[in-house]
């Protein structure tokens, strides 16, 4: 009996009988050597199947399957509104993060630090005027896009089974989007911000039973103060971003899993 280990898959013998060119031999030897140690073949296989999946062709569409004549469905362009909501959210997030480098939520001083910081951004900071404008506009556009997206979902009947949960998630998202807008509106602490905040406090206070508690929680008191601005700031730059980003991810994940509802 030989002490030499017998290889079930004697790759060397296989290489000999193949009669390969030197380049091929070198390549295969290297590949086998690496593969014995790193199991590359597995990864190559994954890459290969990924390659095929990326090039997968789409299944026959509903319109074609039911022979709806490949008619141009006149609402298809509106199906991009969800993408627009996401894009404007991203633009708002990036420009907001940049604004956050210069803003500070303090009501000290006269006019307040918050106000003077906005003034600083608008008048002295390089590109600050544009940056604030960009943040404003992307927020406005996002609300508009989300609302129109909701209308397209409504009028194409896309909220029906099995998409009810995504519809409700959408309601939560549009409310949070408006919450984003409201908390952001208060941050410059100018006259409009202050009195919009006043109305918010009054609305919170007028809720039966939990009104005072809600006003305390959200606005930090029954009159506007440093606490109010600070809470609006944390809601706007910390809590809401986390929650909304997660919910958008879930929302789009559900669309991914369920597929876009095709019109009939």
């Amino acid at each position, binding site marked *: 009996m030989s002490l030499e280990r017998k290889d079930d898959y004697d790759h060397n013998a296989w290489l000999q009988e193949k009669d390969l060119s030197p380049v091929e031999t070198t390549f295969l030897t290297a590949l086998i050597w690496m593969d014995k140690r790193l199991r590359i073949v597995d990864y190559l296989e994954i890459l290969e199947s990924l390659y095929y999946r*990326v*090039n*997968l*062709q*789409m*299944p*026959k*569409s509903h319109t074609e*399957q*039911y*022979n709806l004549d490949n008619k141009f469905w006149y609402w298809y362009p509106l199906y991009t509104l969800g*993408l*627009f909501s996401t*894009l404007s959210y991203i633009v708002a997030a990036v420009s907001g993060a940049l604004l956050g480098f210069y803003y500070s939520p303090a009501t000290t001083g*006269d006019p*307040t630090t918050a*106000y003077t910081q906005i003034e600083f951004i*608008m008048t002295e900071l390089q590109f600050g005027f*544009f940056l604030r*404008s*960009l943040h*404003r*506009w*992307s927020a*406005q*556009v996002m*609300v508009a896009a989300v*609302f129109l997206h909701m*209308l397209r979902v*409504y*009028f194409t*009947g*896309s*909220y*029906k*089974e099995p*998409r*009810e949960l995504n519809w*409700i998630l959408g*309601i939560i998202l549009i409310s949070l989007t*408006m919450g984003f*807008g*409201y908390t952001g*509106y208060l941050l410059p602490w*100018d*006259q*409009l*911000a*202050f*009195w*919009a905040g006043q*109305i918010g406090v*009054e*609305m919170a206070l*007028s*809720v*039966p039973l939990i009104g005072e508690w809600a006003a305390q929680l959200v606005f930090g008191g029954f*009159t*506007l103060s440093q606490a109010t601005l600070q809470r609006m700031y944390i809601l706007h730059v910390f809590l809401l971003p986390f929650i909304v980003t997660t919910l958008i991810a879930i929302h789009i994940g559900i669309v991914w899993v369920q597929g876009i509802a095709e019109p*009939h």
Partner: protein
Amino acid sequence: MTDNNDNTTAETDGGTGIVAPDDETPTWSERKARKTGLSRLTYEYFERSRREDQDLRTESDYVERDVLGFPTWPHETVRNLSIASFFVGMIFFLSATLPPHIGPPANPSSTPAIILPDWYLYWSFGLLKLSPVNPELSILGGQKLMADRTYGVLANVVVVGFIAMVPFLNKGSARRPVEQPFWAAVGVGGVVFAFTISVLAVQNLVPMNIDLLFDLTFLLPIVAGIVTYAVLKTMREGYMYDLNRRYYRLRPPR
């Protein structure tokens, strides 16, 4: 060793007698057999739903084709990228041409003549101005059941709650507005109401009699809804004939 190991098979345990647990994943039925109560039911359901999926798959007369629509790359991807850059470019354009301004600093001791949130909250602001329709109950001696402001906040809850309920009120497989004129009418009425209630919110900027404005706020949505209903009902007959012929024959409505 006490157990009667077959000596002809290779020893893979290094003579320790310790054998690694086999790594075969138990099937659903094996897992089910070990379980009781709720988890057993869960497994049973999983099994059923898998069987159902399989049955549906075998039943399906889904036709595969040779060329199946556009490939993701490059067609879809390039299209999406161009739409995305156009859209982001549009935001940049707006920001560059119409920058926002900032008002005077906050001053708690002087209430400005016009207090407004951003435009997309006008509807909510408008709902706070519904005091004329807050019912005065004769049982309470003509008193209102709720303060006007509470009523307004409640109106917000009702509106949002109704929208959230829509999928549970309107079911079925119809998708196009012509198929369901009523729900299309509700939608159009809702959109018009969102607009009119927003105008009501900025009533002091609208050069119009306030009572007329208030009435229009509720009348316009109703009129718009009725018109929508009438138009769609009229369109429906010719339209549905085509749809039925092509579609419902293949996929009967539930």
